[in-house]
């Protein structure tokens, strides 16, 4: 077993355990912390795949931004020692059935399919290449999605301010 496999198994164990804890924990602040662990180990997987830039974005935007935003809103909307009520078993089992059947179906399909075993190149993607692709409007260029996403972020920013603003009535 190579060191890469060991690291992958470690990260995936953390991801699976803490994502299950995220959706089952009864204390909402703890659920947010478990979500943070999941996102950080996903960044670890990206580092394992040599996507350093992507891992940095994952850490900054997800772990640094979204989780902090979620924790802020938890602190604004619920009491810190409040425990969520457990859903009754009658309401739980259809969801559990959907999740288990769907996961079993997908896993069997994945394991039956034979993927071509190309050896991935282990070079780093340089940030220069990423930047050139983002402003390139030719083939393999992403200038248009880049502009669209910037307009979307601006719209989300204005929308969040307008929605959360205190009304004067």
């Amino acid at each position: 077993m190579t060191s890469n496999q060991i690291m992958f198994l470690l990260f995936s164990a953390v991801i699976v355990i803490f994502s299950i804890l995220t959706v089952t924990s009864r204390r909402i602040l703890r659920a947010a912390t478990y979500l943070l662990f999941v996102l950080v180990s996903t960044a670890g997987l990206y580092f394992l795949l040599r996507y350093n830039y992507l891992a940095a974005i994952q850490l900054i935007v997800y772990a640094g931004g979204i989780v902090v935003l979620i924790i802020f809103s938890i602190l604004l909307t619920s009491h810190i020692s409040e425990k969520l009520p457990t859903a009754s078993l009658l309401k739980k089992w259809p969801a559990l059935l959907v999740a288990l059947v769907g996961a079993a179906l997908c896993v069997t399909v994945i394991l039956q399919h034979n993927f071509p075993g190309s050896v991935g190149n282990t070079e780093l993607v340089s940030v220069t290449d990423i930047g050139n692709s983002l402003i390139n409007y030719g083939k393999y260029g992403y200038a248009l999605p880049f502009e669209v996403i910037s307009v979307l972020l601006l719209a989300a920013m204005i929308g969040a301010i307008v929605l959360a603003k205190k009304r004067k009535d």
Partner: protein
Amino acid sequence: MFEGVPLSWFLVLSTIMFFVGVYGFLVRKNLITMLMSIELILNSVCINFVAFNKILYPDHMEGMFFTIFIIAVAAAEASVAIAIIINIYRRIVNIDVEKMNEMKY
């Protein structure tokens, strides 16, 4: 195969994560925990994109750019969703989906 790690391992991991997110979205009643389940689902999709990109098409960068855009859309979605949740909390001092039975007034 990426240095001993087969592609199917990544896919199985992201499948498990995706359906844990689906389960959480269906079971949870609190709006913020439902938002956290959606983040789990988006994250599992990102893992899929990145693994396909690195292992099947290592000379391209499409999967990575899709992941970057997914992360940006997730950030925008989370900010607007939290603004809406705070607004709802102001109106009916609760963020439980079962208590939200009047949308118009």
